[in-house]
């Protein structure tokens, strides 16, 4: 399993660097301070990084029939899928830690800082669940079929804010207030524990699925 991780680490590292550069760029543009924009973009990046890493890597595996190759080696399905889940977990934790550390370094209003931490953590955990679902989907449905469903889902997701605004009269301000309200009482440790448990469950399910 270690060998698979080593081999996939390059892909993950590449995506990691690109996203990190992007976030740094945004930071410099916003005058190196904790603004609402930087926090939101940071959170969004944490949320999407695992999924992007998976999609890039899985596309490579799909193109090369990588799983046929791995299946011919002395590896079990548990190890092959395990390597993916571990990799994504590592990427996610590392990136969230980096960003939270970075924000702390920049510093700012303590209230906003702790709020940003909670928000980033929340995005990281959300990203993890999302990643677990994506892996489950890819292994269960096959890469191509999953991607079609996934993209359709995202197009649909784009309509949600419009729907909220038009039908329920909920605008960006209301959403922000809602988020801030939720974040202030955020219990990091229980939330992380629950998410890790769900993530482990998704891994188990995926490992069982990848059998004909």
């Amino acid at each position, binding site marked *: 399993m270690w*060998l698979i991780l080593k*081999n996939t680490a390059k892909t993950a590292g590449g995506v990691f660097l690109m996203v990190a550069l992007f976030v740094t760029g945004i930071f410099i543009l916003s005058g190196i301070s904790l603004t609402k924009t930087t926090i939101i973009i940071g959170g969004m990046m944490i949320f999407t990084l695992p999924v992007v890493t998976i999609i890039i890597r899985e596309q*490579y595996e799909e*193109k*090369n*029939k*990588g799983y*046929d*190759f791995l*299946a*011919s*080696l*002395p*590896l*079990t399905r548990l190890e092959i899928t395990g390597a993916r889940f571990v990799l994504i977990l590592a990427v996610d934790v590392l990136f969230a830690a980096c960003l939270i550390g970075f924000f702390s370094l920049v510093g700012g209003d303590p209230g906003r800082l702790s709020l940003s931490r909670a928000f980033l953590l929340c995005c990281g955990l959300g990203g993890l669940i999302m990643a677990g679902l994506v892996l489950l989907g890819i292994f269960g449905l096959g890469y191509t079929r999953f991607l079609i469903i996934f993209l359709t889902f995202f197009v649909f997701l784009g309509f949600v804010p419009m729907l909220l605004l038009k039908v329920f009269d909920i605008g960006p301000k209301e959403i922000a207030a809602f988020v801030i309200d939720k974040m202030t009482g955020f219990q990091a440790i229980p939330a992380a524990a629950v998410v890790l448990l769900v993530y482990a469950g998704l891994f188990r399910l995926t490992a069982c699925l990848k*059998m*004909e």
Partner: protein
Amino acid sequence: METQPVLSLQHLEKKYREFRLNIESLCLERGSILGLIGPNGAGKTTTVKILMNMIRRSGGEVRVLGLNPRKDEKEIKQRVGYVGEEPAFYGDKTVDWTGKYVSGFFRKWDTNRFQELLDRFAISRSKKIQELSKGMKVKLALALALSHDAEFYILDEPTAGLDPIIRREVLELLLAESREHERSVLISSHITDDISRLADRIAFLVEGRVVLSRLKDDINADWKKIHYKRGALDKDTTASLFSRKEHAFSLSGITNKFQELKQKFEKPVLDGDVKVENVDLDDILIALVEGEKSCG
């Protein structure tokens, strides 16, 4: 040491929507070579993949090197040299990289042997996988499978697309592995000539069932092509022939019990009314497929 078979299948079953694989029993002793012959879609690849735990069986007992593929997948893959139907590698990586990567997964890896096989198969180490032809990829897969000191080789169509010269070389390599190192081989191929050169035992798979599995020498002794003049054979004998054909001056058919009928043929052969010929495995397969169809 106990002489445990390297492969044993009992009541193996795999159900698909439109196809059912159902092998009553199949066995392979250590040091022998089993050739698997059958039309496309007969279940050869499914069988092989079940042995490697790439497909889950629906029922029955499977033992590979005495191990259960479901439970001991890793150990089986360590000790089996496997070449799949369409070998897959990472296209952007070089041959060298692939060799190093694969070697990391095996307990025993013989680097010298691998290098020697690459030379022998004329595969250049610095080439990227995507620059290799289909045949080259098969050769690379063979080199990898032969380099980790496997006890048992499971090869699914390893000679398809290879030219006759390389094919002969591969066959000689496998023969040496079996004769000199007591290693066992399960090989499926559409090129029946290769099977008849290599195998000790041959199993014919038709529509998911093993319709014939015997030692090659027994098959050769019992299966013959008979050319005969009209009226030279009695009704029962004629009726028992497969693939009966009428030619301009004679008739022909294939028998599967020549040893039993030998006496009946003796006189007409002397009279020149019957001619007995050896038959190719191709002809036997075609006869078996026809037989299967006429039974429904």
